[in-house]
C-alpha cells in the first residue's frame, strides 16, 4: 500500500469518511431543528423526518466506528501495557488485534444474516420509501471497514521495523 496510487486512494477514503461524518451530523441537527420550527411556526412537518434522523444516526455511528480508530478516539484501559517492555507490548497488541478482528468477523456474520433476513422479507421502512435491507445494509460494510482500520492502525506497533521504510 506504499505505492503513490494506494496512498492517494487511502487519503481520498479518509477525506470521504470525514466528510460523511460532518455531513451526517449537520443533517441530523438541521433536520431536527427544522422539524421544531415547522411544528410551531407552520403547524406542519415531514412524516419521514424522524425516521430519516434515526437512520442517519445509525449510519453515522457505524461509519464513526472506523473513523474513531483513525482519529484515535477509542478508549482503552491501560493497566499493564505501560509496564511491559516493547516485546511484551507487541505481544499484547497482537492478541488485542486478534480479539478485535474476531469481534468484527462475528458482527459481519451476524449483521449479514440480519440484512439477508430483511432482504427476504422485502419490507419497506415505516415512513421512508426505502427497503429496510438497504437501510441496514451498511452494517456489515461498516464492521468490515472497522476491521481494515484496526489493521491499519496496528501496523506500526506490530511491525515496528517497517515504519521507517513506509515513511520513505
Amino acid at each position, binding site marked *: 500500500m506504499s505505492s503513490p496510487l494506494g496512498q492517494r486512494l487511502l487519503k481520498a477514503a479518509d477525506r470521504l469518511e470525514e466528510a460523511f461524518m*460532518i455531513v451526517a451530523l*449537520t443533517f*441530523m441537527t438541521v433536520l431536527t431543528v427544522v422539524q421544531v420550527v415547522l411544528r410551531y411556526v407552520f403547524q406542519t412537518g415531514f412524516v419521514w423526518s424522524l425516521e430519516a434522523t*434515526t437512520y442517519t444516526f445509525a449510519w453515522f*455511528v457505524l461509519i464513526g466506528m472506523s473513523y*474513531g480508530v483513525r482519529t484515535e478516539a477509542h*478508549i482503552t*484501559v491501560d493497566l499493564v501495557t505501560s509496564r511491559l517492555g516493547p516485546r511484551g507490548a507487541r505481544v499484547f497488541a497482537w492478541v488485542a488485534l486478534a*480479539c478485535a478482528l474476531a469481534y468484527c468477523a462475528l458482527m459481519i456474520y451476524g*449483521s449479514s444474516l440480519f440484512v439477508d433476513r430483511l432482504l427476504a422479507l422485502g419490507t419497506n421502512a415505516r415512513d421512508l420509501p426505502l427497503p429496510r435491507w438497504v437501510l441496514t445494509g451498511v452494517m456489515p460494510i461498516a464492521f468490515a471497514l472497522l476491521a481494515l482500520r484496526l489493521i491499519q492502525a496496528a501496523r506500526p506497533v506490530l511491525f515496528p521495523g517497517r515504519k521507517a521504510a513506509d515513511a520513505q
Partner: protein
Amino acid sequence: MTAAFLVAALFVLLFLRVPIAISLGLSAVLTMLLFAEQSLVALAQRFFSALQVYPLLAIPFFILAGALMTTGGVAKRMIAFANALVGHFRGGLAMAALLACALFAAVSGSSPATVVAVGSIMIGGMARSGYSREFAAGLICNAGTLGILIPPSIVMVVYGAVTETSIGDLFIAGVVPGLMLTAMLMVAVALLARRLGLPRQPRADWRTVLRTGRDAIWGLLLIVIILGGIYSGVFTPTEAAAVSAAYAFFIAVFVYRDVGFKEIPKVIAEAAKVTAMLMFIIGNAYLFAFVLTTEQVPQMMSAWITDLGLPPWAFLIVLNLLLLAAGSFMEATSVVLIFAPIMFPIAVALGIDPVHLGIIMTVNMEIGMITPPVGLNLFVTSGISQLPVTKVIRAAMPWLVVLLAALVIVTYVPWVSLVLPRALG
C-alpha cells in the same frame, strides 16, 4: 455461570487493551455463542436498534453544542465573568475557574468537554498567576465533573432512555445537587487558599462585572432555552439538544464572531469524533445489557438483594460501592446502561424515587470520571495541562473527599434531588 463468564471475558479483554467498546461487544457475543440460545442475528438487530433510540440522539447534539461553545468564545466569556465576580477573594482565580466550570456545565452535557472548555484557558492562566500547575489541573479535573450533574447531562439522557424516566425531571433534579457541589468545592478552595496563601486579584469594579455579565449572557441563556423548552413541553430533550447546537452555532458565528464559517467543519468533525466514540461504546453496552437480560441476571440480582432484606439505606451503600467500582473501570454511559436495568426495579421496590436514583448514579459517574484506570477527565486534563496522567491523578485525588461527601448527601437526603422536580409538579 453464564454471567460470570460474561464479566470475566469483559475484564480479560479490557486487560488486554482491547478498546472498551469492543470488549463489551465481544464478551457479549462470545457469551451468547457459548451459552445462550439467542442467535447472532438477534445481537446484530439489537445493535442496530440501539443506534436508533431517539432520546440518545440528544448526545451528538449536546456534544456539538459544547464544541461550538468552546471554540465559539462562550467559555472564554464565562471565565471572564466568573473572574470579575470572585477574582478578588483569596484564591480568586481558582474560585473563578471553579465557577466557570459550573457555568459551562449549564450549557454542556459532558464532563470532559467542560474540563477542556475551562481548563485549556485557566490551567495556563493560573500557572502564570502563581498557582502550581498541579493545583490548577487537580481542581479543574474535579470541577469539570459538574458537566454531567448540572443540566444538560449525557449521563442523565442515557439513564432516562434506559429506565424511561423523564429526562426533563432528571435535568431539573440535577440543579440543586449541582449548586450544592459547586458551593462545597468553593468552600474547599477558600479554606485551602488561606492555608496555602494563594494570591488574590484586584477587585473588578461593578462596571466590569456588568460588562462581562452582559457578554456571557448569550451563553447562559441557553440553559433557560433547554430547561424552559423541555419543561413547558415546547420540545423533547432531543429537540432541545438540536436547538442548543443551532443556537451555539448562531452565537459563535454571528454574535461573538470568534469563529469563521471556514472553521465550522473542523469543530463539527471534532464533535463527530467524540460522539462516534461514545455511541460505539453505548451500542456495545446495549449488547452486554441484552445478554444480561436474556440470562435473567437483573431478575436474579433483584430477587437476591430483596431476599437479603436490606433496608433502603443499606441497599444504597451496596449500590454506591458497586457503582464506584464499576465507574473506575468503565466509561460512565456504559455503566449506567448496564447497571440501571439491574438497580432500577430493586430501588423502586424499596420506595426510592427513580429520579433520585438517577441523580445518585450521576454523582457516582462524576467520581468515576476522576478515578483511574478509566477516568476520562484525568486523560483530558493531562492532555491540556501537559502533565503526565500520574501527576494529574495525584493532584485530583485530594478533591475526591469533597465529591464523596456530596455523594453521601445526595444519596441520603433525597430532598436535595427531588425538591425542584416536585415543586414544579
